[in-house]
């Protein structure tokens, strides 16, 4: 009995020491609360919708979290996802390229924006906040320029992403796979070590004889590719390329990272945390819609929850900026 008690408390302590424990607890609490509040929440139909809604944001949050872990910030996810989705849609539906090739072109566009961000931060030494602010504005401008502000409707060929395998949409399997892949990259590869080290103390990384610039360029490029995949997911979900896709999503991506326990100072955190953070944000929208709450109030609620989450993260610090 006593032995069992100690092993249980050891298990609890082990769980609480995990980087993802706080976000996970928050997610479970919100799940239970939502199930109690609304009878429609815990239905198979609604859960599938929730997963579909979460898909693009999870991809954005994965990319954003890698960049935040390096101590940088990326404001371009929303615009990148819109531009990549649009270019893929144009390639397949206007120029008649095969969908696979079009999708690859879209991912290439995302990678290119990421590469430009990375070069701007390392070679031109523009702070990431400013560099990615510029690409966020410019990429959105390109989207509007190309579409003239209108949507491309009747988008076909991206249904594979919404088709189901083993009961779940393929895009859901896709974001689960990418979460695992990102986790693996950050925790089990040399690139991951360098990402954490740069976020923890970039000066020490440079004095250690490592090329920190190349790491940053690589991570910005990878992140851009992840945002582009989010754009393809939106193409499939909406069956349209909509010029304001992802408008404001960069803030959701950052919020998801913060909710996931990733500190904006860099060097600590887990991509699984930001995955959970993205899921929490989607869940909040979902339950508020189910309850018929004024959509504008959703923003207030999200802001409030973000503030509370940040409060638990910074407990014990002497001061923050």
């Amino acid at each position: 009995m006593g032995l069992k008690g100690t092993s249980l408390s050891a298990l609890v302590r082990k769980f609480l020491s995990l980087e993802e424990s706080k976000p996970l607890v928050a997610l479970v609490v919100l799940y239970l609360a939502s199930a109690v509040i609304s009878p429609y929440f815990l239905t198979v139909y609604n859960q599938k919708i929730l997963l579909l809604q979460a898909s693009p944001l999870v991809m954005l949050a994965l990319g954003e979290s890698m960049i935040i872990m390096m101590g940088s910030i990326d404001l371009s996810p929303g615009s990148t996802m819109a531009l990549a989705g649009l270019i893929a849609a144009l390639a397949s539906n206007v120029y008649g390229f095969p969908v696979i090739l079009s999708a690859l072109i879209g991912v290439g566009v995302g990678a290119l924006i990421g590469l430009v961000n990375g070069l701007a931060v390392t070679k031109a030494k523009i702070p990431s906040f400013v560099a990615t602010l510029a690409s966020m504005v410019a990429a959105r401008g390109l989207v509007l320029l190309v579409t003239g502000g209108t949507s491309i409707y009747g988008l076909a060929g991206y249904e594979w992403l919404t088709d189901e395998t083993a009961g779940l949409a393929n895009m859901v399997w896709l974001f689960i796979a990418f979460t695992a892949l990102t986790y693996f990259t950050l925790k089990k590869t040399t690139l991951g070590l360098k990402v954490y080290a740069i976020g923890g103390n970039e000066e020490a990384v440079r004095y250690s004889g490592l090329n920190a610039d190349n790491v940053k360029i690589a991570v910005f490029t990878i992140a851009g590719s992840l945002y582009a995949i989010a754009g393809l997911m939106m193409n499939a979900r909406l069956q349209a390329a909509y010029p304001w896709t992802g408008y404001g999503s960069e803030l959701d991506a950052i919020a998801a990272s913060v909710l996931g326990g990733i500190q904006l100072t860099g060097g600590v955190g887990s991509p699984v945390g930001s995955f959970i953070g993205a899921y929490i944000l989607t869940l909040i929208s979902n339950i508020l819609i189910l309850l018929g709450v004024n959509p504008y109030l959703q923003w207030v609620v999200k802001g409030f929850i973000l503030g509370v989450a940040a409060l638990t993260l910074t407990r014990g610090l002497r001061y923050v900026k």
Partner: protein
Amino acid sequence: MSTPPAVKAVNLTKTFPGVVALNNIDFDVMYGEVHAVVGQNGAGKSTLVKVLNGIHPPDRGEIYVDGRQVRIRSPADAKRHGITLVHQEIMVYPNLTVAENIFVSRMSRGRTPGFVVSRRELDDYASKYLKMVGLDVDPSTKLRDLGVGEQQLVQIARALAEDAKVICLDEPTSALTPGEVERLFSVIRDLKSRWRAVVYITHYIDEVFRIADRVTVLRDGVKVATKRVSETSASEVVSLMLGRSLSEFYAYKPAAETAGHPLLVVKNLSTQPTRPSEVPLRNISFELMRGEVLGVLGLLGSGKTELAKSLIGMQRVVSGEVWVEGRRVEIRSPLDAARLGIFYLPENRRLEGIVPLMSVKDNILLPSIDLVARFVRKRVLEEAIAGDWVRRLNIKTPSLYTKVSNLSGGNQQKVVIAKALARRSRILIFDEPTMGIDIGAKVEIRRIIARLSEEGHSIILATSDVDEALTLSDKILVLYKGEVKGYLRRGEVSRDKVVKLMSGYGG
């Protein structure tokens, strides 16, 4: 006897995670008195004044001002009771003017000069206090354009403007030239005559005997003694400080047996500073053999750090040549240096050496990770390598996965050494390797340096500790303001001569 001390502390105790920084300290200072506090790095001197100034609230103990008990939980509390701290690194605003620096805390309290500030009025008011400390500068100059010594005097002027009764000076002379030290001392004597109480922290014993009335010796957070300066001697204070004799304190390295061609040759190296705090190097030349230790000796501002960094591509070299194993090389980055087997172990470990929140293992492997694993990391191999260095360097850590920030300064330094060795470096450049770590660890680090050289590593030891350089080096390069003042074999020269060269005399 009738007047109570300006400040009196009783049973002060302050602990930080894992360290008792102050252990039941009693301390007092009278008006018109200079009370020196001495001790090695980590003895608790700085913590004592930080507690008195409310920067670190004490865990236990009482503080009395003018005989009345007070609570000091913040610097604002301390100021209210007339206690102020003059510190080189904190407390100044380099981007504000001299006058603004003098009045910044009063402005924030909304007292004179009021909320709306007239620049001219402020400057006039400031000149009055600048005159008191004998500083002849335009009050509208930006503080960052002044020298370190002048900045310090501005802080003292600020203390006077705030009408501080107790002025604490933390290592005020460590960055000053001999002339500036004289000027500071005359200002301190003037403070005494103005009936201020002065707490003077230093690790230079000679200063105690020149300026102080009483001296308190701290060691490992404990007060060892308080003595009248007139009733003690320098050697007594030193032995109280160290708790053991000098010979135990330094590791002695036997002379290296060198033959053949030098591993590293530097010819006429000159650099240009990229930051105002850096010193330009002029025509530096030396040779380093395999297994040799070259001591680069100099005070702050001598250029020793700049020389170390120029060898890893972190300074702008304008002329000169570097040869490694008989080949001319261009080193543009630490990566270039690492490929040649050159590794720099920085003076400022927390800023340049370690990633505090990362594990001991990951820190050790950081420079060599691409040699150990291609892309996917190899946990078993990594643990074997890191574990091996932890054992060989006797790094005291609960596990390989402990965060480096939880280790003591000495063990953090050993982690940095392990980084260099795991990278298979041949030339190790140490920059003040024993600064800021406790006595026991100092000896251990010095022994490691001696051992590394015996094992065939070549070492450049940049230090300001004369005895460290004399006991460990085969050759000594003395730098002063970016120039070579002497390039000597060990045993060629007396300690006194070396000290003179370091201070810019002779050579």
